[in-house]
């Protein structure tokens, strides 16, 4: 895919060169690095606006996972009676919902981000990647709130906190990377093709049922495990659960390694596809 780039370089007196000629991908990362303050401010804006009505903002961040957990526990745990090992079923579900909601909400937000911020984009220059990237950061607050809730639940249910909990930040990092990769693709595709905004929510909902959110990966028959593991969310959710429950939860390490590798691939291709769309973004949004 050809990716003509705006080349920004600084010569002597801060000379900026804007040209139609292509150049290596380094410039993209440099311009992103330069815009880091903007990235933080846009994320901060989303967070402040969201939690401005403090009660509603935080209540919503807690209610959503809690209500989903209750329904899933009822359906999968009590009615379908899927296995959960020694882990209380509600905890199993909440520990799946936590990374999933972050992933799903952020991918949706990223998809809409360029359209939501279209006035900004059509008036001011800044690296457009900052917009979806800020969604990834802003939604971390929700994730943190749910993780705290989850920790409380672990103690409440008598499971307690294992040493493996120290792995949580690393799993979250891998999760954020996958979200960034998918989010960049979603943002660029949604800016270019308007029907993506209808397809995306459907895909996200669909993903909820092919990922181990309401059930344990144990429930998957052995012969399907590899095919099932190709869904990158599997490795992340299972990794997250392993961090919380330790040996109690069956975890195949390769799925997390695979997810992380795929995340990296998605980021690299996502950035260059985004750059490709970015050239004409003002003319199409």
């Amino acid at each position, binding site marked *: 895919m050809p990716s003509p780039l705006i080349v920004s370089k600084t010569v002597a007196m801060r000379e*900026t060169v804007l040209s*139609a000629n292509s150049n290596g991908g380094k410039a993209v990362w440099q311009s992103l690095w330069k815009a880091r303050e903007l990235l933080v*401010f846009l994320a901060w*804006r989303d967070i402040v606006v969201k939690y401005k009505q403090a009660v509603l903002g935080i209540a919503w961040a807690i209610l959503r996972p809690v209500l989903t957990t209750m329904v899933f526990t009822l359906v999968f745990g009590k009615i379908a009676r899927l296995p959960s090992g020694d882990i209380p079923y509600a905890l199993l579900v909440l520990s799946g919902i936590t990374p999933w909601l972050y992933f799903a909400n952020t991918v949706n937000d990223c998809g809409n981000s360029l359209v939501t911020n279209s006035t900004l984009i059509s008036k001011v220059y800044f690296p457009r990647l900052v917009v979806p990237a800020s969604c990834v950061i802003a939604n971390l607050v929700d994730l943190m709130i749910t993780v705290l809730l989850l920790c409380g639940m672990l103690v409440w249910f008598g499971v307690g906190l294992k040493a493996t909990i120290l792995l949580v930040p690393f799993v979250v990092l891998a999760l954020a990377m996958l979200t960034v990769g998918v989010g960049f693709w979603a943002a660029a595709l949604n800016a270019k*093709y*308007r029907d*993506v905004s209808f397809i995306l929510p459907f895909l996200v909902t669909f993903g909820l049922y092919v990922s181990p959110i309401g059930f344990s990966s144990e429930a998957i028959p052995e012969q399907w495990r590899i095919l099932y593991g190709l869904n990158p969310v599997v490795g992340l959710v299972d990794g997250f659960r392993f961090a919380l429950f330790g040996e109690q939860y069956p975890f195949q390490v390769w799925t997390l390694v695979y997810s992380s590798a795929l995340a990296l691939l998605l980021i690299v291709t996502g950035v260059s596809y985004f750059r490709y769309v970015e050239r004409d973004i003002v*003319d199409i949004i």
Partner: protein
Amino acid sequence: MSYSVRVEGLGKRYMIKGSNRRHRLLRDEIMSFVKEFPRKSESRQEFWALRDLGFEIAEGDKVGIIGKNGAGKSTLLKLLSRVAEPTTGEIRLRGRVSSLLEVGTGFHPELTGRENIFLNGVILGMSRVEVRRKFDEIVSFAGVERFLETQVKHYSSGMYMRLAFSVAAHLDPEILIVDEVLAVGDAEFQKKCLGKMQDISTGGRTVIFVSHSMQTVTSLCNQCILLDTGQIRKQGRPSEVIVEYLGGDAGSLGRVDFQGQGKTIADEHVQLLYGEVLDEDDQPILEANIRKPTRVKMGFRVKSRSGIRFMPNFHFVVPGGTYAFVSTPDILTELAPGDYEASCYIPGDFLNEGSYFVGLAISSYSPGLTIHFFEPSAMTFNVRDSMDGSVGRHGYANVMPGVVRPRLQWKVEEVSN
């Protein structure tokens, strides 16, 4: 002289799709990929909004960009401000660029005034530290000290605009881009924009200004670029470029010679030969000093002894078609056959700054009105206010409205105590 902006071979192409739909659908893309995979046929038309543009702007120049709608002005501004990317060529910019076309973008209604100053400042390209340094200045310029902790959705539209403008105005760019058309807000606010631009002009910054007001361009700019269908038609001093834009080939450089051009503008009695705009020293000029007297002159030939008392008249019209005034001589006499010159003296401190078109006519009244010839917009000239502390301005730096700006007698006196 080092350049501040250099543009080379700049082009911007837009694709006009076969269908009139603005947005593409992924569905269509997949379908067309499946159906016509081997051949990549799509009925797309291309349209070049700008083509092979090249120019250089020296540091500290104030450049006006003029042209009809669709000439490519907005596209050029978008490329210069980096909002859109060029299809061909390159732009070199020395220093920070900011544009006053983005006033208020990025403001969030749910955030407070304080929060918005930081957010907007960073969006416009300032660092957090920079915003903090200029914070007090921005607040006091906008006059919103008491409402800093109020969400801007509760601001009046005036306060909102003042705050937004204040942030943009404190950017301190080396290159400022202003689009008059996009400067939202009421007349007063637009004036404020222009005033700020004047401030920046005097500070040695480079200013690029898109305007439809020739008066503003003449008074603010020292360079001018005329765009026509995506290309530069003329570039140079504002007066010359504006003449080209407004008059096409009608106006000429302070002197128009109809006889020499082989044009016969006449009836059976009298013929128009030439017209001139002259300064105090009788030199043909294109640009008149607002303080100095100017003379307009027409040469005509009386062909026969007819007994008609010819009345030469000069018609002064400003861009937009408004008549400034018509002038005729006080005393008319019968003229024997021969060549004559009629002059009209315009005092200094009478015309306003801006462009004037001069129409040349001879009519007579005996007893009905006869127009022997009338050549509207025969000549064009610009009046320029050199801003050297002119009387009547007292530091006011904006355009003074009106088709004329006479210097009149004034008296201010105390009537009671």
